[in-house]
């Protein structure tokens, strides 16, 4: 008996030792080199994308195929089913995809981890990307990657409800007071004046308009309790209590676009992705898009973006950078916009985009004054805690919630 136990123990211990020394799965990391690792000869690049659908996958494949043909390399595009998990697996194994989509909200954690290769300084015309996008992908003073494209929030207005309330073209709100006034006029028993998605990814636009932000400019301290943030939140809460602003969870809708399409709200604040949803789900609802009203500190909106990440562990970084520059050229960005409705991250492409999609002018205008997401490592947990406390916006004790955010963010930043 005891011998059997011992043998079993030896087997197990041996197995563990083997796997640990064998090192098949994991790679002991060494410092990331600053010069690009450049494999010689034709290389086979792996690309991992989180695709919104067949149109996007096909467009990305066509673009990478064209580059591959021109340069003699090959690119394999894989569509991730769970981007977080597949990226994590790659980074842990030391053999990640060479090029991948990197979400702005996730970016800082991966940059801190050392998984990303900072190549932005090698790009031609890097300065042509919108400044706020470049800032979004900057960690510790260094811009890491090239913004792929972006979306920005704007005010979506139901034209039927608008004219029914006796409002005309000149009534499009320019200020916070205007917004509250028209929202009041648009509010009926069954329809709120403005429906907002829950969380700071929508209500946060008012914070930008009020000149505030959740963190200080350098990202070292939390500033949610300061007037820039708290006054903006109070404005939203006041109108929410009056019933003229409502959140999607108050009207049983999954998001602002659904509430808007179902006529539960006459206006909503959403990004350019709403176009596709309206076309597919609510083709009969007529709407116009306007820029968000100005707050006390001027124009402001929120921008959402992804960049083309290149792995620090990639063996063919030089080729990957070349691929990314071809994917972020003005022509290619317009081609992507055509294929799946994203907005180009280059200012040089803005005019071409506006001529092609004149109805999107309000969205793309946000590029000039929008603010990207919070991009400091370790904030995920803090932000989701804040969002969960703001789910019941009208009932939330804002002072406590914002102070709580500052405390939690403070300890996350200290780590």
């Amino acid at each position, binding site marked *: 008996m005891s011998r059997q136990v011992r043998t079993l123990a030896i087997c197990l211990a041996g197995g563990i030792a083997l796997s640990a020394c064998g090192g098949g799965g994991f790679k002991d990391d060494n410092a990331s080199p600053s010069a690009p690792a450049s494999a010689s000869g034709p290389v086979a690049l792996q690309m991992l994308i989180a695709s919104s659908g067949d149109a996007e996958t096909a467009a990305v494949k066509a673009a990478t195929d064209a580059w591959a043909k021109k340069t003699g390399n090959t690119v394999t595009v894989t569509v991730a089913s769970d981007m977080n998990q597949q990226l994590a697996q790659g980074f842990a194994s030391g053999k990640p995809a060479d090029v991948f989509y990197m979400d702005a909200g996730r970016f800082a954690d991966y940059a801190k981890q050392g998984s990303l290769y900072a190549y932005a300084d090698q790009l031609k015309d890097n300065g042509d990307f919108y400044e706020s996008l470049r800032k979004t992908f900057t960690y510790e003073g260094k811009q890491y990657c090239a913004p792929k494209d972006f979306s920005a929030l704007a005010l979506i207005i139901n034209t039927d409800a608008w004219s029914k309330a006796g409002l005309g073209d000149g009534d499009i709100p320019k200020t916070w007071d205007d917004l509250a006034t028209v929202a009041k006029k648009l509010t009926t028993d069954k329809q709120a004046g403005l429906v907002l998605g829950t969380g700071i990814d929508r209500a946060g636009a008012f914070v930008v308009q009020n000149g505030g932000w959740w963190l200080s400019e350098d990202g070292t301290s939390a500033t949610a309790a300061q007037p820039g943030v708290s006054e903006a939140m109070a404005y939203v809460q006041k109108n929410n209590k009056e019933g003229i602003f409502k959140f999607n969870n108050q009207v049983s809708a999954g998001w602002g676009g659904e509430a808007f399409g179902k006529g539960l709200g006459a206006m909503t604040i959403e990004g350019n992705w709403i176009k596709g949803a309206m076309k597919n789900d609510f083709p009969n609802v007529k709407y116009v898009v306007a820029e968000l009203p100005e707050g006390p500190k001027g124009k402001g909106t929120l921008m959402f973006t992804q960049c083309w990440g290149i792995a620090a562990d990639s063996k063919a970084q030089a080729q990957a950078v070349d691929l990314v520059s071809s994917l972020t050229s003005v022509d290619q960005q317009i081609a992507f916009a055509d294929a799946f409705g994203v907005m180009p991250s280059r200012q040089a492409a803005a005019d071409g985009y506006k001529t092609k999609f004149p109805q999107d002018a309000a969205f793309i205008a946000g590029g000039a004054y929008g603010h990207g997401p919070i991009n400091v490592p370790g904030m995920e947990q803090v932000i989701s*805690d804040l969002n969960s406390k703001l789910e019941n916006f009208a009932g939330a004790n804002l002072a406590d919630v914002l102070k709580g955010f500052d405390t939690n963010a403070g300890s996350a930043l200290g780590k």
Partner: protein
Amino acid sequence: MSQVDSGRAGSGRRAPARVAKRGTGQNQTGAGWLFVSPMLIILGIFLAIPIVMALWVSFTDWNGRGNPFGSRVNFVGAENYTSLLTEQGLSRQDFMLSMRNTFYYVLGVVPVQTALALLLAVIVNQKFLKGRTFFRTAFYFPSVVSSVAISLVFVYLFTGTGAINTILSKVGVIGPNWLDDPRGVIHIIGEKVGLWSIDAPPSALASTEVMNLSLWEWFKGPSVALSTIMIQVIWTTAGTFMLMFLAALQDLPAEVEEAAMVDGANRRQRFMNVTVPHLRPTIFLVLTLGIIGTWQVFDQMYVMTQGGPAKTTLTPAYLSYAAAFRQQQWGEGAAIAFILFALIFLLTSIQRYLLRDKDEVAKKKATKAQAKAAKAKGALA
């Protein structure tokens, strides 16, 4: 005479055989190990080694890049555990919330699914029931469908304007916004009977904090959203456990039941005094599997709610996933998993103790007492 002969012949034959067996004994052990080695290797690679590695990760600051045994990874002692258990902060708050949620979840799901499974098994086991096979298949069907697929269907059924609320409105009931409703069931009941108001909770409960959560929060009960998930899980798993009860019921000899009938036991008495004692090992199995499965609940949260609304469907398993894959806090994620393991181990042990066979224990005790008494007697003498 012949008996003795054959006995002798037998023993005579046996002796050399024993010697021979001794000789092949070593070989047999070796062969045995050889035969089980594929399983051992597979279990080792996919089970034992990952568990040991995760345990190691839970004591380090590994950030998810490269080898967790590499030179850049620092051993941080129990830091990941203390941030979950003893340090004031967001990690402990979330962990305690997940513990509270899952506690109510287990409390609701395990007894109901066990009782329902037993009921279904008894119904399906009726000899005179027409279409038994149909019912058996129908009850078992949810168990063989992927829980992710079922979760997606439930999301559509239980949206604010979904089928469930439409049916409810037909009979004049305004259903809640099921999966978006964070109000606790105990809170709602308390408000209905006039104990308190949810918007202005009693200050004695709201201001006393235990482990980052106020007593008011601790005694919230499962939220409406969590209750919706509980309904789904009970419906899904009752079929699986029904099958186990059914197998045990079919093992129950008809004579025993008939004997009870002859003794004049009525239906209820036969069920309580014959069937249930016979099912004791199965009940133990079902409860154990139920407790383990419910504490580890993950799929439904991942598909349906992602921990929301207001973190009322956060569970330790989902929190562990979120900590590792979303926040890149791999050590903390692993630590949550091991605390959960310890908790399940503890609960299963307690349950094993409570459900032990009392007759057997009594018998053991009696023999022990006898031996003691005999010993004492011997000492006296």
